[in-house]
Protein backbone atom coordinates (compact mmCIF):
# COMPACT_ATOMS: atom_id res chain seq x y z
CA UNK A 1 0.00 0.00 0.00
CA UNK A 2 2.63 2.49 1.00
CA UNK A 3 4.60 1.67 -2.13
CA UNK A 4 1.64 2.39 -4.35
CA UNK A 5 0.79 5.64 -2.65
CA UNK A 6 4.42 6.77 -2.64
CA UNK A 7 4.67 6.04 -6.31
CA UNK A 8 1.47 7.98 -6.90
CA UNK A 9 2.73 10.84 -4.86
CA UNK A 10 6.05 11.00 -6.68
CA UNK A 11 4.33 10.79 -10.04
CA UNK A 12 1.96 13.51 -8.96
CA UNK A 13 4.77 15.80 -7.82
CA UNK A 14 6.63 15.23 -11.07
CA UNK A 15 3.49 15.98 -13.07
CA UNK A 16 2.87 19.12 -11.07
CA UNK A 17 6.39 20.28 -11.72
CA UNK A 18 6.10 19.77 -15.45
CA UNK A 19 2.62 21.32 -15.43
CA UNK A 20 4.02 24.36 -13.67
CA UNK A 21 6.61 24.76 -16.38
CA UNK A 22 3.99 24.44 -19.11
CA UNK A 23 1.52 26.70 -17.36
CA UNK A 24 3.95 29.56 -17.59
CA UNK A 25 3.15 29.55 -21.28
CA UNK A 26 -0.32 27.92 -21.47
CA UNK A 27 -3.33 28.59 -19.32
CA UNK A 28 -5.24 25.44 -18.45
CA UNK A 29 -8.91 25.44 -19.26
CA UNK A 30 -11.68 23.64 -17.43
CA UNK A 31 -13.60 20.87 -19.11
CA UNK A 32 -17.10 19.57 -18.51
CA UNK A 33 -17.67 15.84 -18.62
CA UNK A 34 -21.07 14.25 -18.70
CA UNK A 35 -21.15 11.00 -16.78
CA UNK A 36 -24.36 9.31 -17.75
CA UNK A 37 -27.36 9.32 -17.89
CA UNK A 38 -26.61 5.91 -19.41
CA UNK A 39 -23.49 5.03 -17.48
CA UNK A 40 -23.19 1.54 -15.99
CA UNK A 41 -22.08 3.02 -12.67
CA UNK A 42 -25.39 4.77 -12.24
CA UNK A 43 -27.84 1.85 -11.77
CA UNK A 44 -30.48 3.55 -13.80
CA UNK A 45 -30.29 6.99 -15.25
CA UNK A 46 -28.32 9.34 -13.05
CA UNK A 47 -26.39 12.04 -14.83
CA UNK A 48 -23.39 13.54 -13.13
CA UNK A 49 -21.99 16.72 -14.65
CA UNK A 50 -18.34 16.78 -13.70
CA UNK A 51 -16.29 19.93 -14.14
CA UNK A 52 -12.66 19.01 -14.55
CA UNK A 53 -9.32 20.67 -14.37
CA UNK A 54 -7.16 18.10 -16.05
CA UNK A 55 -7.96 14.87 -14.25
CA UNK A 56 -9.07 16.61 -11.09
CA UNK A 57 -12.74 17.16 -10.32
CA UNK A 58 -13.55 20.77 -9.51
CA UNK A 59 -17.24 20.23 -9.07
CA UNK A 60 -19.70 17.39 -9.56
CA UNK A 61 -23.44 17.95 -9.92
CA UNK A 62 -25.74 14.96 -10.03
CA UNK A 63 -28.89 15.56 -12.07
CA UNK A 64 -31.89 13.51 -11.05
CA UNK A 65 -35.42 13.28 -12.27
CA UNK A 66 -35.05 10.98 -15.26
CA UNK A 67 -37.10 8.43 -13.35
CA UNK A 68 -39.24 10.60 -11.12
CA UNK A 69 -42.62 8.90 -10.84
CA UNK A 70 -44.27 11.07 -8.21
CA UNK A 71 -45.10 8.37 -5.68
CA UNK A 72 -45.84 10.92 -2.98
CA UNK A 73 -48.60 12.41 -5.12
CA UNK A 74 -49.85 9.04 -6.34
CA UNK A 75 -50.05 7.71 -2.78
CA UNK A 76 -52.61 10.40 -2.02
CA UNK A 77 -55.08 8.77 -4.42
CA UNK A 78 -54.45 5.15 -3.43
CA UNK A 79 -56.02 3.29 -0.54
CA UNK A 80 -53.57 2.11 2.08
CA UNK A 81 -53.34 -1.48 0.81
CA UNK A 82 -52.78 -0.18 -2.72
CA UNK A 83 -49.81 1.94 -1.72
CA UNK A 84 -47.59 -1.13 -1.24
CA UNK A 85 -47.79 -1.81 -4.96
CA UNK A 86 -46.30 1.64 -5.55
CA UNK A 87 -43.58 1.61 -2.95
CA UNK A 88 -42.42 -1.80 -4.17
CA UNK A 89 -40.86 0.01 -7.09
CA UNK A 90 -38.74 2.42 -5.08
CA UNK A 91 -35.75 0.18 -4.43
CA UNK A 92 -36.49 -2.51 -6.97
CA UNK A 93 -33.69 -4.83 -5.90
CA UNK A 94 -35.00 -5.22 -2.37
CA UNK A 95 -38.69 -4.64 -2.97
CA UNK A 96 -40.16 -6.36 0.04
CA UNK A 97 -38.13 -4.18 2.38
CA UNK A 98 -39.84 -1.08 0.92
CA UNK A 99 -43.26 -2.28 1.98
CA UNK A 100 -42.35 -2.96 5.59
CA UNK A 101 -41.94 0.58 7.00
CA UNK A 102 -45.11 1.81 5.29
CA UNK A 103 -47.14 -1.09 6.64
CA UNK A 104 -45.63 -0.59 10.09
CA UNK A 105 -46.58 3.10 9.99
CA UNK A 106 -50.16 2.23 9.04
CA UNK A 107 -50.24 -0.41 11.76
CA UNK A 108 -49.03 2.09 14.34
CA UNK A 109 -51.81 4.49 13.36
CA UNK A 110 -54.42 1.73 13.44
CA UNK A 111 -52.96 0.32 16.65
CA UNK A 112 -52.88 -3.19 15.33
CA UNK A 113 -49.93 -5.50 15.62
CA UNK A 114 -49.05 -8.37 13.33
CA UNK A 115 -49.05 -11.81 14.96
CA UNK A 116 -45.60 -13.13 15.95
CA UNK A 117 -45.49 -15.59 13.06
CA UNK A 118 -46.10 -12.78 10.59
CA UNK A 119 -43.40 -10.66 12.20
CA UNK A 120 -40.86 -13.47 11.92
CA UNK A 121 -41.66 -14.25 8.30
CA UNK A 122 -41.59 -10.53 7.59
CA UNK A 123 -38.13 -10.31 9.06
CA UNK A 124 -36.95 -13.32 7.08
CA UNK A 125 -38.22 -11.84 3.82
CA UNK A 126 -36.79 -8.46 4.81
CA UNK A 127 -33.35 -10.00 5.22
CA UNK A 128 -33.69 -12.07 2.04
CA UNK A 129 -34.38 -8.79 0.22
CA UNK A 130 -31.21 -7.41 1.75
CA UNK A 131 -29.20 -10.34 0.46
CA UNK A 132 -30.75 -10.11 -3.01
CA UNK A 133 -29.96 -6.41 -3.09
CA UNK A 134 -26.49 -6.31 -1.59
CA UNK A 135 -24.92 -9.28 -3.35
CA UNK A 136 -25.61 -7.47 -6.59
CA UNK A 137 -23.59 -4.59 -5.20
CA UNK A 138 -20.75 -6.93 -4.31
CA UNK A 139 -20.60 -8.18 -7.87
CA UNK A 140 -21.19 -4.78 -9.38
CA UNK A 141 -18.42 -3.13 -7.40
CA UNK A 142 -15.99 -5.37 -9.26
CA UNK A 143 -17.46 -4.40 -12.63
CA UNK A 144 -17.00 -0.71 -11.91
CA UNK A 145 -13.34 -1.32 -11.27
CA UNK A 146 -12.75 -3.50 -14.29
CA UNK A 147 -13.39 -7.04 -13.06
CA UNK A 148 -16.38 -8.54 -14.86
CA UNK A 149 -16.41 -12.00 -13.26
CA UNK A 150 -17.90 -11.10 -9.85
CA UNK A 151 -21.02 -9.72 -11.51
CA UNK A 152 -21.80 -13.09 -13.08
CA UNK A 153 -21.32 -14.78 -9.74
CA UNK A 154 -23.67 -12.26 -8.16
CA UNK A 155 -26.40 -12.65 -10.78
CA UNK A 156 -26.09 -16.43 -10.58
CA UNK A 157 -26.50 -16.62 -6.82
CA UNK A 158 -29.05 -13.84 -6.52
CA UNK A 159 -31.38 -16.00 -8.58
CA UNK A 160 -31.54 -18.56 -5.78
CA UNK A 161 -32.59 -15.89 -3.33
CA UNK A 162 -35.18 -14.51 -5.73
CA UNK A 163 -36.54 -18.01 -6.21
CA UNK A 164 -37.10 -18.28 -2.47
CA UNK A 165 -38.85 -14.92 -2.38
CA UNK A 166 -40.95 -15.95 -5.36
CA UNK A 167 -41.87 -19.25 -3.71
CA UNK A 168 -43.48 -17.35 -0.83
CA UNK A 169 -44.83 -14.24 -2.46
CA UNK A 170 -45.34 -15.13 -6.10
CA UNK A 171 -43.21 -12.28 -7.32
CA UNK A 172 -39.50 -12.23 -7.99
CA UNK A 173 -39.08 -8.49 -7.86
CA UNK A 174 -42.33 -6.99 -6.71
CA UNK A 175 -43.83 -9.21 -4.01
CA UNK A 176 -46.59 -6.85 -2.79
CA UNK A 177 -46.96 -9.35 0.01
CA UNK A 178 -47.06 -7.30 3.18
CA UNK A 179 -50.49 -6.45 4.56
CA UNK A 180 -51.67 -4.17 7.31
CA UNK A 181 -51.94 -6.60 10.20
CA UNK A 182 -49.75 -9.35 8.81
CA UNK A 183 -48.94 -11.08 5.58
CA UNK A 184 -50.93 -12.18 2.57
CA UNK A 185 -50.11 -15.83 3.04
CA UNK A 186 -48.10 -18.35 4.97
CA UNK A 187 -44.84 -19.87 3.77
CA UNK A 188 -45.15 -23.01 1.62
CA UNK A 189 -44.15 -26.50 2.72
CA UNK A 190 -40.48 -27.34 2.49
CA UNK A 191 -39.50 -23.71 2.15
CA UNK A 192 -37.47 -23.60 5.35
CA UNK A 193 -35.19 -26.43 4.26
CA UNK A 194 -34.74 -24.97 0.79
CA UNK A 195 -33.90 -21.57 2.20
CA UNK A 196 -31.32 -23.07 4.53
CA UNK A 197 -29.67 -24.61 1.47
CA UNK A 198 -29.70 -21.27 -0.33
CA UNK A 199 -28.06 -19.58 2.63
CA UNK A 200 -25.19 -22.04 2.27
CA UNK A 201 -24.77 -20.96 -1.34
CA UNK A 202 -24.76 -17.30 -0.34
CA UNK A 203 -22.07 -17.94 2.24
CA UNK A 204 -19.99 -19.67 -0.43
CA UNK A 205 -20.60 -16.68 -2.69
CA UNK A 206 -19.30 -14.34 -0.02
CA UNK A 207 -16.13 -16.42 0.31
CA UNK A 208 -15.70 -16.45 -3.46
CA UNK A 209 -16.10 -12.70 -3.68
CA UNK A 210 -13.66 -12.23 -0.85
CA UNK A 211 -11.12 -14.39 -2.70
CA UNK A 212 -11.75 -12.69 -6.03
CA UNK A 213 -12.10 -9.07 -5.07
CA UNK A 214 -11.24 -8.11 -1.52
CA UNK A 215 -7.62 -9.18 -1.60
CA UNK A 216 -7.04 -8.00 -5.15
CA UNK A 217 -4.22 -5.49 -5.37
CA UNK A 218 -5.87 -3.34 -8.03
CA UNK A 219 -9.13 -3.31 -6.10
CA UNK A 220 -7.35 -2.24 -2.93
CA UNK A 221 -5.35 0.45 -4.69
CA UNK A 222 -8.49 1.92 -6.22
CA UNK A 223 -10.64 1.86 -3.10
CA UNK A 224 -8.38 2.26 -0.05
CA UNK A 225 -8.24 5.86 1.06
CA UNK A 226 -10.54 6.94 -1.79
CA UNK A 227 -13.67 8.96 -1.06
CA UNK A 228 -13.17 9.25 2.67
CA UNK A 229 -16.28 10.49 4.49
CA UNK A 230 -15.77 11.54 8.11
CA UNK A 231 -18.61 10.45 10.42
CA UNK A 232 -19.79 13.97 11.32
CA UNK A 233 -20.05 14.95 7.65
CA UNK A 234 -21.88 11.75 6.81
CA UNK A 235 -24.37 12.31 9.61
CA UNK A 236 -25.04 15.92 8.64
CA UNK A 237 -25.71 14.83 5.06
CA UNK A 238 -28.06 12.08 6.22
CA UNK A 239 -25.96 9.16 5.03
CA UNK A 240 -27.27 5.87 6.32
CA UNK A 241 -26.90 2.15 6.18
CA UNK A 242 -23.54 0.62 5.39
CA UNK A 243 -22.28 3.99 4.16
CA UNK A 244 -22.42 5.54 7.61
CA UNK A 245 -21.37 2.37 9.41
CA UNK A 246 -18.27 2.32 7.19
CA UNK A 247 -17.42 5.70 8.71
CA UNK A 248 -17.40 4.17 12.17
CA UNK A 249 -20.89 5.15 13.32
CA UNK A 250 -22.34 2.23 15.24
CA UNK A 251 -25.97 2.74 14.37
CA UNK A 252 -28.32 0.17 12.91
CA UNK A 253 -32.08 0.55 13.13
CA UNK A 254 -32.51 -3.20 13.17
CA UNK A 255 -30.92 -3.11 16.60
CA UNK A 256 -31.75 0.45 17.71
CA UNK A 257 -35.04 1.17 15.99
CA UNK A 258 -37.46 -0.73 18.18
CA UNK A 259 -40.06 -1.32 15.47
CA UNK A 260 -42.07 -4.48 15.06
CA UNK A 261 -39.60 -6.82 13.44
CA UNK A 262 -38.01 -9.88 14.96
CA UNK A 263 -34.37 -8.80 14.80
CA UNK A 264 -34.18 -8.51 18.58
CA UNK A 265 -35.03 -12.20 18.91
CA UNK A 266 -31.73 -13.42 17.47
CA UNK A 267 -28.00 -12.90 17.99
CA UNK A 268 -26.21 -10.83 15.41
CA UNK A 269 -23.61 -8.14 15.15
CA UNK A 270 -23.57 -4.65 13.69
CA UNK A 271 -20.44 -4.31 11.57
CA UNK A 272 -18.59 -1.04 11.38
CA UNK A 273 -15.32 0.07 9.85
CA UNK A 274 -13.28 3.05 11.03
CA UNK A 275 -11.87 4.21 7.66
CA UNK A 276 -14.87 5.68 5.84
CA UNK A 277 -13.39 5.05 2.39
CA UNK A 278 -14.72 3.15 -0.61
CA UNK A 279 -13.12 -0.06 0.54
CA UNK A 280 -14.73 0.03 3.97
CA UNK A 281 -18.17 0.62 2.47
CA UNK A 282 -17.65 -2.46 0.34
CA UNK A 283 -16.28 -4.46 3.26
CA UNK A 284 -19.13 -3.58 5.64
CA UNK A 285 -21.69 -4.68 3.05
CA UNK A 286 -19.89 -7.97 2.55
CA UNK A 287 -20.04 -8.63 6.30
CA UNK A 288 -23.69 -7.61 6.41
CA UNK A 289 -24.63 -10.22 3.84
CA UNK A 290 -23.00 -12.86 6.00
CA UNK A 291 -24.72 -11.47 9.06
CA UNK A 292 -28.07 -11.52 7.25
CA UNK A 293 -27.52 -15.21 6.49
CA UNK A 294 -27.02 -15.79 10.21
CA UNK A 295 -30.13 -13.82 11.10
CA UNK A 296 -32.29 -15.75 8.64
CA UNK A 297 -30.86 -19.08 9.75
CA UNK A 298 -31.70 -18.41 13.38
CA UNK A 299 -35.16 -17.10 12.53
CA UNK A 300 -35.93 -20.10 10.33
CA UNK A 301 -35.24 -22.39 13.26
CA UNK A 302 -37.83 -20.81 15.50
CA UNK A 303 -40.76 -19.42 13.55
CA UNK A 304 -43.65 -19.33 16.05
CA UNK A 305 -46.86 -21.05 15.06
CA UNK A 306 -50.15 -19.26 14.71
CA UNK A 307 -51.93 -17.09 12.18
CA UNK A 308 -50.12 -14.75 9.81
CA UNK A 309 -52.86 -12.15 9.81
CA UNK A 310 -54.38 -10.16 12.63
CA UNK A 311 -58.06 -9.30 12.61
CA UNK A 312 -58.41 -6.13 10.62
CA UNK A 313 -61.46 -4.70 8.88
CA UNK A 314 -62.01 -5.53 5.24
CA UNK A 315 -62.16 -1.88 4.26
CA UNK A 316 -59.18 -0.27 5.90
CA UNK A 317 -59.75 3.21 7.25
CA UNK A 318 -56.76 4.49 9.12
CA UNK A 319 -57.60 6.74 12.09
CA UNK A 320 -56.48 10.34 11.92
CA UNK A 321 -52.95 10.90 13.09
CA UNK A 322 -49.34 11.04 12.04
CA UNK A 323 -46.66 8.41 12.26
CA UNK A 324 -43.09 8.16 11.12
CA UNK A 325 -41.62 4.68 10.92
CA UNK A 326 -38.18 3.93 9.56
CA UNK A 327 -36.36 0.66 9.09
CA UNK A 328 -32.84 -0.34 8.14
CA UNK A 329 -33.35 -1.24 4.50
CA UNK A 330 -30.67 -2.72 2.23
CA UNK A 331 -29.67 0.75 1.04
CA UNK A 332 -29.98 2.48 4.39
CA UNK A 333 -32.64 4.18 6.46
CA UNK A 334 -35.98 4.18 4.75
CA UNK A 335 -38.94 5.82 6.40
CA UNK A 336 -42.48 6.90 5.69
CA UNK A 337 -44.09 9.90 7.30
CA UNK A 338 -47.78 9.09 6.98
CA UNK A 339 -50.43 11.72 7.67
CA UNK A 340 -53.93 10.32 7.93
CA UNK A 341 -57.22 12.15 8.22
CA UNK A 342 -59.24 9.04 8.88
CA UNK A 343 -59.94 8.30 5.23
CA UNK A 344 -59.39 5.37 2.95
CA UNK A 345 -56.40 7.13 1.45
CA UNK A 346 -53.44 8.77 3.15
CA UNK A 347 -53.55 12.55 3.28
CA UNK A 348 -49.82 12.85 2.75
CA UNK A 349 -46.99 10.35 2.54
CA UNK A 350 -43.44 11.63 2.76
CA UNK A 351 -41.08 8.96 1.54
CA UNK A 352 -37.65 9.24 3.08
CA UNK A 353 -35.57 7.03 0.85
CA UNK A 354 -32.02 6.07 1.62
CA UNK A 355 -30.31 6.65 -1.72
CA UNK A 356 -31.59 10.21 -2.02
CA UNK A 357 -29.67 11.23 1.08
CA UNK A 358 -26.76 8.90 0.36
CA UNK A 359 -26.16 10.43 -3.03
CA UNK A 360 -26.67 14.00 -1.86
CA UNK A 361 -23.15 13.86 -0.45
CA UNK A 362 -21.59 13.34 -3.90
CA UNK A 363 -20.85 17.03 -4.60
CA UNK A 364 -18.95 17.14 -1.32
CA UNK A 365 -17.11 13.86 -1.61
CA UNK A 366 -16.24 14.09 -5.32
CA UNK A 367 -14.68 17.52 -5.09
CA UNK A 368 -10.93 17.25 -5.55
CA UNK A 369 -10.91 13.59 -6.57
CA UNK A 370 -9.74 12.20 -9.89
CA UNK A 371 -11.89 10.99 -12.76
CA UNK A 372 -11.32 7.23 -12.28
CA UNK A 373 -12.15 7.60 -8.58
CA UNK A 374 -15.52 9.15 -9.40
CA UNK A 375 -16.72 5.78 -10.59
CA UNK A 376 -15.22 3.97 -7.63
CA UNK A 377 -16.85 6.36 -5.14
CA UNK A 378 -20.24 6.37 -6.85
CA UNK A 379 -20.21 2.57 -6.96
CA UNK A 380 -19.23 2.27 -3.32
CA UNK A 381 -21.98 4.66 -2.17
CA UNK A 382 -24.35 2.21 -3.85
CA UNK A 383 -27.61 3.75 -4.93
CA UNK A 384 -30.65 2.61 -6.86
CA UNK A 385 -32.15 5.26 -9.09
CA UNK A 386 -35.68 4.37 -8.12
CA UNK A 387 -34.68 5.06 -4.55
CA UNK A 388 -33.42 8.54 -5.46
CA UNK A 389 -36.18 9.64 -7.79
CA UNK A 390 -39.13 7.92 -6.13
Amino acid at each position, binding site marked *: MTDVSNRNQLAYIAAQASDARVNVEFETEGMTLNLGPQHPATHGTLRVIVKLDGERVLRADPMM*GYMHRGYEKLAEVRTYPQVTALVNRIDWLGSFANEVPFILAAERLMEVEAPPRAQWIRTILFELSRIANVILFLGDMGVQLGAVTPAFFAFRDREFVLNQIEAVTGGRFHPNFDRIGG*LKDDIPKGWIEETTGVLGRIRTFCDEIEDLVTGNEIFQARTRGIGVIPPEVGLAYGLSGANIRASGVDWDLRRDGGVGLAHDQVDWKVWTHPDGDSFSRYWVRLQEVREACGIIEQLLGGIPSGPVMAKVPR*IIKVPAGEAYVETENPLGVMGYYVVSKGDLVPFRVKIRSASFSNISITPWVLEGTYVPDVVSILASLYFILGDIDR
Partner: protein
Amino acid sequence: MSSPDTNLDEVPEGSEPVADPARDAIVAALADCLGDGLVASEVLAGTDVWVRVMAGSWLAAATVLRDICGMAYFNFLSAIDWMPSPFGRDMDAQVDLVGADDPQVDPEPLAWGITGGSTRFQMIARVHDPVGHIGVTVKADLDTDNPRVDSWIPVYPGADWHEREAWEMFGITIKGHPNLVNLYLPSQFEGNPLRKDYPLLARRVKPWPGIVDVEAMPGDGDEPDDGGGS
Protein backbone atom coordinates in the same frame (compact mmCIF):
# COMPACT_ATOMS: atom_id res chain seq x y z
CA MET B 1 -45.20 -1.40 18.48
CA SER B 2 -45.16 0.16 21.87
CA SER B 3 -41.75 -1.20 22.73
CA PRO B 4 -39.54 1.66 23.83
CA ASP B 5 -36.69 2.30 21.43
CA THR B 6 -34.70 4.25 23.95
CA ASN B 7 -33.84 4.46 27.61
CA LEU B 8 -34.18 0.81 28.31
CA ASP B 9 -32.56 1.44 31.68
CA GLU B 10 -35.02 4.05 32.77
CA VAL B 11 -38.28 2.67 31.45
CA PRO B 12 -39.42 -0.52 33.15
CA GLU B 13 -39.78 -3.26 30.60
CA GLY B 14 -43.09 -4.89 29.95
CA SER B 15 -45.19 -1.98 31.10
CA GLU B 16 -46.45 0.91 29.05
CA PRO B 17 -44.05 3.78 29.67
CA VAL B 18 -45.86 6.84 30.94
CA ALA B 19 -42.96 9.22 31.32
CA ASP B 20 -40.27 9.81 28.77
CA PRO B 21 -37.50 11.91 30.34
CA ALA B 22 -35.24 11.85 27.28
CA ARG B 23 -37.88 13.23 24.95
CA ASP B 24 -39.18 15.66 27.56
CA ALA B 25 -35.64 16.98 27.89
CA ILE B 26 -35.55 17.80 24.17
CA VAL B 27 -38.75 19.80 24.42
CA ALA B 28 -37.40 21.55 27.53
CA ALA B 29 -34.14 22.45 25.78
CA LEU B 30 -36.02 23.90 22.82
CA ALA B 31 -38.33 25.84 25.14
CA ASP B 32 -35.30 27.25 26.98
CA CYS B 33 -33.45 28.37 23.89
CA LEU B 34 -36.30 29.46 21.64
CA GLY B 35 -38.63 30.97 24.24
CA ASP B 36 -41.79 32.02 22.46
CA GLY B 37 -40.42 30.50 19.28
CA LEU B 38 -41.65 27.11 20.46
CA VAL B 39 -45.39 27.00 19.77
CA ALA B 40 -46.46 23.49 20.63
CA SER B 41 -45.04 20.09 21.39
CA GLU B 42 -46.26 16.58 21.83
CA VAL B 43 -44.48 13.60 23.31
CA LEU B 44 -45.77 10.13 22.59
CA ALA B 45 -43.92 8.41 25.40
CA GLY B 46 -41.54 5.74 24.23
CA THR B 47 -42.30 6.35 20.57
CA ASP B 48 -41.89 9.80 19.15
CA VAL B 49 -41.81 13.54 19.76
CA TRP B 50 -43.13 16.44 17.68
CA VAL B 51 -42.43 20.13 18.14
CA ARG B 52 -43.87 23.12 16.30
CA VAL B 53 -41.85 26.30 16.13
CA MET B 54 -42.40 29.76 14.68
CA ALA B 55 -41.17 30.14 11.10
CA GLY B 56 -38.67 32.71 12.38
CA SER B 57 -37.17 30.16 14.77
CA TRP B 58 -36.81 27.47 12.12
CA LEU B 59 -33.06 27.77 11.74
CA ALA B 60 -32.51 28.39 15.44
CA ALA B 61 -34.41 25.19 16.22
CA ALA B 62 -32.02 23.23 14.00
CA THR B 63 -29.02 24.76 15.76
CA VAL B 64 -30.40 23.90 19.19
CA LEU B 65 -31.26 20.37 18.15
CA ARG B 66 -27.81 19.72 16.72
CA ASP B 67 -25.68 21.45 19.33
CA ILE B 68 -27.60 20.91 22.55
CA CYS B 69 -29.78 17.85 21.96
CA GLY B 70 -27.13 15.86 20.07
CA MET B 71 -29.22 15.44 16.94
CA ALA B 72 -26.25 15.00 14.62
CA TYR B 73 -28.19 13.08 12.00
CA PHE B 74 -30.26 14.87 9.39
CA ASN B 75 -33.14 12.63 8.39
CA PHE B 76 -35.41 14.48 5.99
CA LEU B 77 -37.08 17.81 5.29
CA SER B 78 -40.30 18.40 3.45
CA ALA B 79 -43.62 20.21 3.70
CA ILE B 80 -47.30 19.46 4.16
CA ASP B 81 -50.12 21.23 2.37
CA TRP B 82 -52.99 21.04 4.85
CA MET B 83 -55.61 22.35 2.47
CA PRO B 84 -58.27 19.69 1.88
CA SER B 85 -58.20 18.62 -1.73
CA PRO B 86 -60.69 20.60 -3.83
CA PHE B 87 -61.24 17.42 -5.82
CA GLY B 88 -63.03 15.52 -3.07
CA ARG B 89 -62.27 14.11 0.33
CA ASP B 90 -60.47 11.07 -0.95
CA MET B 91 -58.93 13.25 -3.62
CA ASP B 92 -60.60 11.27 -6.39
CA ALA B 93 -60.09 7.70 -5.41
CA GLN B 94 -63.80 6.93 -5.11
CA VAL B 95 -65.66 8.75 -7.83
CA ASP B 96 -64.73 11.38 -10.30
CA LEU B 97 -66.34 14.20 -8.34
CA VAL B 98 -65.51 17.39 -10.12
CA GLY B 99 -63.43 18.64 -12.98
CA ALA B 100 -60.18 20.42 -12.39
CA ASP B 101 -61.75 23.72 -13.42
CA ASP B 102 -64.77 23.28 -11.18
CA PRO B 103 -63.61 22.95 -7.59
CA GLN B 104 -66.11 22.09 -4.90
CA VAL B 105 -68.26 24.98 -3.82
CA ASP B 106 -67.84 24.53 -0.10
CA PRO B 107 -64.30 23.58 0.68
CA GLU B 108 -63.72 21.68 3.89
CA PRO B 109 -62.19 23.67 6.72
CA LEU B 110 -58.48 23.21 7.28
CA ALA B 111 -57.62 20.63 9.89
CA TRP B 112 -54.16 19.98 11.21
CA GLY B 113 -52.44 16.97 12.66
CA ILE B 114 -50.24 16.49 15.68
CA THR B 115 -49.18 19.76 17.40
CA GLY B 116 -51.82 21.61 15.42
CA GLY B 117 -51.26 24.42 12.96
CA SER B 118 -52.53 27.77 11.82
CA THR B 119 -51.75 28.14 8.14
CA ARG B 120 -52.00 26.09 4.99
CA PHE B 121 -48.34 25.21 4.57
CA GLN B 122 -46.30 23.54 7.22
CA MET B 123 -42.61 22.80 7.03
CA ILE B 124 -41.70 19.42 8.42
CA ALA B 125 -38.25 18.09 9.15
CA ARG B 126 -36.81 15.28 11.15
CA VAL B 127 -33.47 14.90 12.82
CA HIS B 128 -32.09 11.98 14.75
CA ASP B 129 -29.69 11.31 17.58
CA PRO B 130 -27.56 8.37 16.41
CA VAL B 131 -26.25 7.77 19.94
CA GLY B 132 -29.38 8.10 22.07
CA HIS B 133 -31.58 6.77 19.23
CA ILE B 134 -34.26 9.43 19.45
CA GLY B 135 -35.78 11.23 16.49
CA VAL B 136 -37.52 14.59 16.57
CA THR B 137 -40.03 15.88 14.06
CA VAL B 138 -39.98 19.67 13.77
CA LYS B 139 -42.77 21.65 12.15
CA ALA B 140 -43.25 25.30 11.36
CA ASP B 141 -46.26 27.18 10.00
CA LEU B 142 -45.55 29.26 6.93
CA ASP B 143 -47.31 32.23 5.45
CA THR B 144 -50.07 31.03 3.11
CA ASP B 145 -49.61 33.55 0.32
CA ASN B 146 -45.86 33.79 0.43
CA PRO B 147 -44.41 30.73 2.15
CA ARG B 148 -40.82 31.53 3.10
CA VAL B 149 -38.45 29.88 5.49
CA ASP B 150 -34.74 29.94 6.31
CA SER B 151 -32.48 27.33 4.82
CA TRP B 152 -31.10 24.63 7.09
CA ILE B 153 -27.95 24.23 5.03
CA PRO B 154 -25.68 26.11 7.49
CA VAL B 155 -26.57 23.55 10.16
CA TYR B 156 -27.28 20.42 8.15
CA PRO B 157 -25.68 20.55 4.66
CA GLY B 158 -27.75 17.51 3.71
CA ALA B 159 -30.86 19.72 3.69
CA ASP B 160 -29.78 21.10 0.30
CA TRP B 161 -31.62 18.70 -1.99
CA HIS B 162 -34.56 18.28 0.36
CA GLU B 163 -35.11 22.03 0.29
CA ARG B 164 -34.91 22.12 -3.48
CA GLU B 165 -37.56 19.42 -3.54
CA ALA B 166 -39.79 21.37 -1.13
CA TRP B 167 -39.31 24.44 -3.29
CA GLU B 168 -40.33 22.82 -6.55
CA MET B 169 -43.06 20.58 -5.16
CA PHE B 170 -44.71 23.06 -2.76
CA GLY B 171 -43.48 26.45 -3.95
CA ILE B 172 -41.85 27.29 -0.64
CA THR B 173 -39.11 29.89 -0.93
CA ILE B 174 -36.00 28.83 0.94
CA LYS B 175 -34.14 31.91 2.12
CA GLY B 176 -30.39 31.62 1.81
CA HIS B 177 -30.36 28.54 -0.39
CA PRO B 178 -27.43 28.84 -2.78
CA ASN B 179 -28.85 26.86 -5.68
CA LEU B 180 -32.63 26.95 -5.76
CA VAL B 181 -33.29 25.19 -9.07
CA ASN B 182 -35.53 22.28 -9.98
CA LEU B 183 -34.35 18.93 -8.69
CA TYR B 184 -36.69 16.47 -10.36
CA LEU B 185 -38.84 18.49 -12.72
CA PRO B 186 -37.81 19.99 -16.05
CA SER B 187 -36.63 23.56 -15.66
CA GLN B 188 -39.58 25.01 -17.60
CA PHE B 189 -42.17 23.14 -15.51
CA GLU B 190 -44.97 25.30 -14.15
CA GLY B 191 -46.83 24.62 -10.93
CA ASN B 192 -46.10 22.87 -7.67
CA PRO B 193 -47.24 19.28 -8.05
CA LEU B 194 -47.55 18.28 -4.40
CA ARG B 195 -49.89 21.15 -3.57
CA LYS B 196 -53.38 19.82 -2.98
CA ASP B 197 -54.92 22.12 -5.61
CA TYR B 198 -52.62 20.75 -8.30
CA PRO B 199 -54.75 18.17 -10.14
CA LEU B 200 -53.48 14.70 -10.88
CA LEU B 201 -54.28 14.86 -14.56
CA ALA B 202 -54.00 11.14 -15.19
CA ARG B 203 -56.85 10.59 -12.75
CA ARG B 204 -58.96 13.33 -14.25
CA VAL B 205 -58.67 11.82 -17.70
CA LYS B 206 -59.45 8.24 -16.74
CA PRO B 207 -61.08 7.03 -13.52
CA TRP B 208 -59.05 4.68 -11.42
CA PRO B 209 -60.11 1.08 -12.13
CA GLY B 210 -59.17 -0.22 -8.71
CA ILE B 211 -61.78 1.66 -6.72
CA VAL B 212 -62.92 -1.44 -4.89
CA ASP B 213 -60.07 -3.14 -3.14
CA VAL B 214 -61.37 -6.17 -1.29
CA GLU B 215 -59.48 -9.39 -1.32
CA ALA B 216 -59.88 -12.61 0.61
CA MET B 217 -57.65 -12.80 3.62
CA PRO B 218 -55.85 -15.87 4.92
CA GLY B 219 -58.00 -17.80 7.37
CA ASP B 220 -61.12 -16.06 6.19
CA GLY B 221 -62.49 -19.06 4.30
CA ASP B 222 -64.63 -20.44 7.11
CA GLU B 223 -66.27 -17.12 7.79
CA PRO B 224 -69.17 -15.52 5.98
CA ASP B 225 -68.09 -13.41 3.06
CA ASP B 226 -69.45 -10.21 4.51
CA GLY B 227 -67.41 -10.64 7.66
CA GLY B 228 -65.78 -7.28 7.30
CA GLY B 229 -65.09 -5.43 10.48
CA SER B 230 -64.89 -8.55 12.60
